[in-house]
């Protein structure tokens, strides 16, 4: 009797599981509730802030972006004056952030890889210097390093009238680093076209040599030929135009140097501080990546007759890259985010310009949201690009 009853209960349970005991449905319910709570919280906060701002008669919205900014920016990649709009001012700041970030990331990778490999060097002195570099720079807060470099520039370099003049036309003073720059000539756009064409041809050449090597096993010296094209083609165009060379040399005009091409001390100090700090971390990442590839791989590669350069580029680095790329992405993002410290040493980056805008318009929430959106976008774009690259280098699992 009792046996039969148990059996019946079991069977019916199996057919109609109550909702709260079905893990899949339960999970959906929990997620829906969580989502609802998050939405309610956001809505409550948003409407609350809105009504409070109205109560304090603080204007809201992004209307201020089209108003005249009325302040100057020290350096800008796009033409900018105080008569332009806030939007233009913010764009100038944004481009300055990109400028220091992109230059910083490239230099950091170069320096970091160099220091990382040096630390593994068999040369005792080189390895010790690299280790000291890493230990010192990693452990000093980056803001202090920025103050140090900035202070070093304006205290060690003289004023414009007593500029340090290492080579004719090049001037270093506490207002900046000035270099001669070629004046515009119609040959230059043509040279740029030639450069692009050479790059494109190089890519095609690489593809062709790959296919040929796969088929016949014969290799082709792609790199020297492509490099020759990239340098040679624009050079031929330049010669064809009659070698135009008129340099715009910096000259003292009033208080400061004018003309030529210049870097401000703020930019150089920021770039230097960020690159030295971040490259110390990158060096450790590179070292870890290389050390993670077992010694057997090198020996195996050598035993099948690869040259030392090929061992590194075909066997060691592709495997080390898998470990290097993800933390390297983090360091790139760190550098970009740390560039917001620019405001401390007077480089007009995005945050600095937004700060000025907030103070002139009083629209803090809009300004802070803009900062968050911009940094989030830069970070997401960087990491999605790096993730794509990472997928290509990652182990293909079967």
């Amino acid at each position: 009797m009792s046996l039969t009853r148990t059996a019946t209960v079991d069977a019916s349970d199996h057919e109609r599981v109550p909702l709260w005991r079905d893990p899949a449905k339960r999970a959906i319910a929990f997620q829906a509730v969580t989502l609802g709570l998050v939405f309610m919280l956001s809505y409550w906060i948003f409407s609350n802030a809105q009504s409070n701002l109205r109560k304090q008669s603080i204007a809201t919205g992004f209307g201020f972006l089209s108003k005249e900014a009325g302040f100057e920016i020290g350096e800008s990649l796009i033409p900018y004056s105080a008569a332009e709009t806030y939007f233009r001012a913010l764009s100038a700041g944004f481009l300055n952030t990109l400028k220091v970030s992109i230059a910083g990331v490239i230099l950091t990778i170069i320096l970091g890889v160099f220091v990382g490999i040096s630390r593994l060097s068999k040369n005792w002195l080189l390895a010790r210097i690299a280790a000291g570099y890493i230990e010192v720079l990693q452990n000093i807060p980056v803001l202090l390093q920025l103050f140090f470099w900035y202070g070093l520039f304006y205290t060690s370099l003289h004023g414009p009238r007593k500029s340090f003049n290492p080579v004719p036309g090049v001037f270093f003073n506490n207002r900046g680093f000035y270099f001669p720059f070629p004046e515009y000539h119609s040959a230059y756009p043509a040279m740029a076209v030639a450069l692009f064409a050479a790059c494109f041809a190089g890519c095609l050449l690489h593809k062709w040599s790959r296919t040929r090597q796969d088929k016949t096993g014969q290799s082709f010296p792609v790199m020297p030929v492509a490099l020759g094209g990239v340098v040679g083609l624009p050079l031929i165009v330049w010669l064809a135009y009659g070698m135009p060379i008129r340099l715009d040399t910096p000259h003292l005009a009033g208080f400061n140097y004018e003309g030529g091409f210049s870097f401000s001390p703020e930019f150089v100090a920021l770039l230097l501080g960020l690159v030295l700090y971040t490259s110390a971390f990158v060096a450790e990442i590179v070292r870890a990546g290389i050390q993670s590839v077992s010694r057997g791989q090198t020996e195996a590669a050598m035993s099948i007759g690869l040259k030392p350069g090929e061992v590194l580029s075909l066997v060691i680095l592709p495997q080390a890259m898998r470990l290097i790329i993800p933390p390297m992405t983090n360091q790139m993002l760190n550098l970009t985010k740390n560039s917001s410290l620019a405001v401390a040493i007077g480089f007009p980056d995005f945050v600095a310009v937004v700060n000025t805008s907030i103070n002139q318009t009083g629209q803090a929430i809009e300004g802070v949201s803009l900062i968050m959106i911009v940094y989030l976008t830069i970070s997401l774009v960087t990491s999605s690009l790096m993730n794509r690259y990472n997928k290509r280098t990652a182990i293909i699992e079967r």
Partner: protein
Amino acid sequence: MKFAGWGFVLLVAVVMLSLAAAVFAGETLGAVKSRGYLIVGVNGGLYGFGMPDEKGVWRGLDVDTARAIAAAVFGDPDKVKFVALTTQTRFTALQSKEVDVLCRNATKTLTREAESGLSFVAVNYYDGQGFLVPKKLGVKSAKELNGASVCVLPGTTTEQNLADFFRSNKLTMKPVVIELNTVLNQAFFAGRCDCLTSDISQLAGVRAVSPNPDDYVILPELISKEPLAPAVRHGDDQWRGIVEYAVLAMVAAEDLGITSKNIDEMLQSSSPDVKRFLGVTPGNGKALGLDEKWAYNIVKKVGNYGEVFERNIGAESKVGLPRGLNAQWKDGGLMYAPPFK
């Protein structure tokens, strides 16, 4: 991607929540009284206006203004907690009720009052933006500054005035905008810039504490009007009245000839104005919601405007500013208090 998106929503939420949470509270006077002390936002590093001395005691014109408000509310000028604020945080701190009053050399402007939810009260220093240059530069007027590098503090009307002055005179310049006063001043004195621009009061204060004050000169041009005034939040008119009349009481006392030294004799004065001012004839205190002795306490314990000016920034002090626009109206200045009745 998804997680980052949520992170963003949460971040916005946190920012707004912190703003929203601060708005619920009672009337300011009640809150201040039940707390037992006043919280005032000041400049932490401006000699003569708001800066602690070697012993850690806060000194300055703005600091004494804050003490006057405390003397009016509590009868004790020391019941104040000073909070050092940067130009960036000062208005937000006031809006979010972190401070009761802002006495931080802030310029009264239309948009700050109309759009930012602030009310500026009576002016405690009429200032103007000027230029500090090294004497050896040989510049006699700001109009000779074409092409100069200019050190400037960010996010004040200073940046805009500077751009306006150079634009209207068809001159060019390169601003170097640094957030921290100390870093900015170091950069200027090391020669990174040809001139430093700010309010004259600020320039005088910076020069006073510089290594070689005599090597620097303030150019004669005033390129802006900068009426510096304490500020309170919109919406609490009683509190606004108290702060306004605490400032004006110091001006009125000087006008009436009442000083911290002679005030006890003045209690016997037969002048109806003096009697009303000192609360011998009651009325003013009740109207403001304060003790009748409020003005007496201000002058007795802090001083009248002239005393406070001379002590902190006057010609004999290290800052060495002339009274100028800040003289009494009878002496050709702009300091003018309405009748206290």
